[in-house]
């Protein structure tokens, strides 16, 4: 524990965020894209907790508490939207959902 610095935690958070962003860019399945979005959110909360811990302040941790709350609500609404979309169109592949394209 003594030798793990702030930079190590931030590096982990940054790499996690980059992996999530790559997933959002290359995947076509809306559910997997949504999971990658959640991963990016989690990476941001990891950076928040690290800053909070190394600054000896509680406020970042409380913000993470709110982020988790909002993320839970957001996932519920987002999944309901995806289910509604699936009922209408019968697919969750984003390249098949292009009826507004032209």
């Amino acid at each position, binding site marked *: 524990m003594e030798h793990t610095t702030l930079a190590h935690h931030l590096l982990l958070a940054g790499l996690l965020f980059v*992996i999530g962003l790559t997933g959002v860019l290359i995947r076509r399945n809306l559910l997997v894209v949504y*999971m990658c979005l959640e*991963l990016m959110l989690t990476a941001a909360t990891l950076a928040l907790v690290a800053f909070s811990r190394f600054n000896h302040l509680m406020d970042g941790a409380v913000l993470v508490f709110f982020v988790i709350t909002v993320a839970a609500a957001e*996932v519920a609404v987002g999944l309901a939207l995806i289910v509604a979309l699936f009922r209408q169109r019968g697919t969750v592949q984003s390249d098949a959902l292009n009826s507004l394209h032209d």
Partner: protein
Amino acid sequence: MPDGLFIFFAALTLGAAALLVLSRNPVTSAMGMILALVGVAADFFLLDAYFLGVLQVLVYAGAVMVLFLFIIMLMNSDDPTGAYPWKTLALGLATFFLLSAGVLWLFQWSGAVPSIATGPTPPELSNVPSEFTTSAKSFGRLLYSKYLLPLEIAGFLLLVALVGVVSLSKDSNSTAQN
């Protein structure tokens, strides 16, 4: 050189995240996501944020991912087999390597982040308002004093989400029957 537990959980988290992005089966992706979230929760524990680690496992790896798995199993959402279009692949690889290099440079070599160690173990409970402590009690104290209004708004947001989800699923039901 970071501590061994940190390296183990960081490798677990990054590997599971890679599984999430690369697997063609959505169920495998969801399992990778759960593993990555548990890895992040373990990192919260290493950062002495025990309450948040427990919350992460309960809410994210528990409730949210169960919701995801239900939806995945409800709909037949297997990816079409076959390679990704080369444009997508090039964009993804370029993003990954450029941003990873940027993150590595920023946090390891640029000197922008002071290389401070964790310092003394935080107290379990403190009389100083908003000092970092390990107990869940200090969360409650802050939530009901400094962050009272955000707490009320968060509660209201959960209610709005609940009503929204019910009305969303009802609407699509009636249009499907018509």
